[in-house]
């Protein structure tokens, strides 16, 4: 087997769709950060920008969430999944025009959604606030972006399949499935009454467990053994962990309906699925534990992401039980949980993947080491502060809400200090992401120059000595 260098013509030939996906993702991330910051300020200073309809809390939160999930996580996750599938296939991406077309319409769709949300045209469903007409555009453009990935998977030069393959392919297949079902059941032929929250809860949870988490894991499973140069420990259980996620991941949707007006078995199945999913998390932790000791910025991000993923799973399982849900439901704990998953786990793993991938895609080193380190520090600090502040606010809120004598205004006043912490965290994260975006734009511009190529040391740790 001839050894390919870390930067190869394969990467150069697949560069454009990947770079465009990442650059749009990073831009949406900063936009999401701006809206998240404004919305978090309004939680403790309600008069802030209250007269401008676009920035009012309801629309601002929906815009921040939509830009974050459909703008940032989807664009960056798809870019890295395509990149990993391309690298493992050993050939340049095929059908790149599909990816470029898909990229164009996906981002026009997200832009349309944000304009729609700004005008107040939003739905009432978590993680699916974007208007119904945009969902069709997203469905077709995601499928178009997925085509090169699936071609790279099916047309790989060697029949070997690796954990990254499974997770990436699952995410590519499952999102159109999820979106089409939820679109039919909530928009084109809406189901009635109590079925709606069940469908919406299933979608919100599945888009995390079956799309965003697999996208992140496919990158982590690729980068960690590349950097450590060692076979993943307990790799023989990776497939069991994968199937555990695919089989029970979608059943955890009833977790938010505990105690709600739905048949008891829906919540109970979700509780049990959360616990079973713990096995998947356990396997991921065993497989990727090498990340905690390996050097490099990419792996530091990924190690933090894996830790957040495990912590998030514990959080999910514990709060799904009825006795705990009584305390945590309808408080800032829900938000802390969401941020721990979407920011703490998915986003940091994607950051790590991007820091690892971009020098290989472009053949250029990152422009500024200061901005790289700054982004790492600000991200980790910001996420920890964000989750801890939200948990503190949640604890105060839960304590007060269960006491019927405490008036609502008092509860709001009590959570004020913690919510100022949330604003500080959002500010730190926004600064970090601006560093990231600036560094990324700078590095992307370097493609046009000849200077500062990335230098890769030989990577032969896993080569078989014979041959």
């Amino acid at each position: 087997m001839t050894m390919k260098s870390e930067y190869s013509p394969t990467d150069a030939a697949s560069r454009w769709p990947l770079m465009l996906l990442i650059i749009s993702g990073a831009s949406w991330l900063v936009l999401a950060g701006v809206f998240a910051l404004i919305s978090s300020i309004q939680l403790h200073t309600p008069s802030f920008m209250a007269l401008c309809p676009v920035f009012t809390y309801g629309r601002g939160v929906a815009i921040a969430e939509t830009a974050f999930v459909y703008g940032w996580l989807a664009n960056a996750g798809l870019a890295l999944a395509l990149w990993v599938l391309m690298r493992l296939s050993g050939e340049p991406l095929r059908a790149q025009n599909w990816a470029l077309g898909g990229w164009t319409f996906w981002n026009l769709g997200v832009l349309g959604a944000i304009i729609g949300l700004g005008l107040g045209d939003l739905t009432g469903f978590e993680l699916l606030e974007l208007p119904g007409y945009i969902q069709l555009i997203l469905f077709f453009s995601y499928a178009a972006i997925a085509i090169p990935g699936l071609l790279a998977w099916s047309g790989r030069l060697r029949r070997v399949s690796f954990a990254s393959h499974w997770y990436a392919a699952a995410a590519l297949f499952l999102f159109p499935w999820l979106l089409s079902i939820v679109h039919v059941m909530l928009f084109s032929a809406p189901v009635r009454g109590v079925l709606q929250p069940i469908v919406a809860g299933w979608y919100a949870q599945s888009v995390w467990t079956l799309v965003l988490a697999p996208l992140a894991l496919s990158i982590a499973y690729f980068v960690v053994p590349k950097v450590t140069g060692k076979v993943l420990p307990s790799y023989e259980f990776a497939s069991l962990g994968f199937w555990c996620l695919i089989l029970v991941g979608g059943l955890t949707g009833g977790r938010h309906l505990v105690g709600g007006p739905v048949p008891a078995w829906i919540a109970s199945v979700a509780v049990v699925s959360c616990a079973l999913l713990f096995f998947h998390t356990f396997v991921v932790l065993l497989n990727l534990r090498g990340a905690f000791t390996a050097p490099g910025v990419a792996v530091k991000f990924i190690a933090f992401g894996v830790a957040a993923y495990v912590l998030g799973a514990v959080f999910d399982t514990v709060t799904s039980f009825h006795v705990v849900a009584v305390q945590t439901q309808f408080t800032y704990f829900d938000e802390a949980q969401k941020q721990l998953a979407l920011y703490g786990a998915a986003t940091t793993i994607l950051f790590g993947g991007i820091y690892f991938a971009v020098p290989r895609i472009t053949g250029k080193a990152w422009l500024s080491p200061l901005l790289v380190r700054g982004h790492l520090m600000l991200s980790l600090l910001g996420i920890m502060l964000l989750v801890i502040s939200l948990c503190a606010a949640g604890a105060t809120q839960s304590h007060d809400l269960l006491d019927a004598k405490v008036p609502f205004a008092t509860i709001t006043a009590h959570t004020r200090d913690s919510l100022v912490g949330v604003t500080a965290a959002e500010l730190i994260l926004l600064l970090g992401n601006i560093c990231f975006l600036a560094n990324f734009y700078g590095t992307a511009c370097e493609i046009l120059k000849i200077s500062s190529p990335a230098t890769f040391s030989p990577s032969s740790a896993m080569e078989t000595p014979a041959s």
Partner: protein
Amino acid sequence: MSELPNDPRVDQAKASDEGLLDAHESALGKQHAPDGAKYRLLPIAILFTLSGLILFAGTYLNRYAGHYSARIFNENAKPSSGAPAAVKIDPVALGKTQFNAVCITCHQSTGLGIAGIYPPLAGSEWVNGPSARLIRIVLYGLKGQITVEGHAYGAAAMPVFGQVAGSAYNWNDEKVAAVLTYVRQEWGNKSGPVTADEVAAVHKAIGDRKEMSEAELEAVK
């Protein structure tokens, strides 16, 4: 450019893509047999973890899934026998419903009737008298003249209410009993309730027949 392993601008990889694929492929097919008695603890621990979680899941669902019924909303609900529990109906409430639906037309909501046409129920010696007479009036109806509290009434006939041939109402014994219980405690009346069993006994003893007359009723003690 010099090679800097810790340069944050490039993350170095120790393994190539091909090496990664090969190494993991061979890791899956690895045999541990030559080690003889040595076994690895971790795989067993992982399988035990999975088994434990599945055991927990089964137990939890058995206890809290509400038999997967679409009608059980409380996870702590006790399983029901399936048959709906028999509901006790308050005879006064049932009687009031019946009275307000039908009897009120002639006897009025005050229970005073209309002088010279419809006899009163409030304070009437017939209503507060022996229940056997009262049961017969409602069950089979009444034709001809009747004297109530010293006034004669005869212009109108009392219709047949019981489940008797030719009845327009076909009230079962329970409804007849309920309406009698109601009128015997309303408008200042203080007589005891009439049970469905009493009505059934009269109904069974007499069977089908035509409307009662005052003389026939007088004969009943």
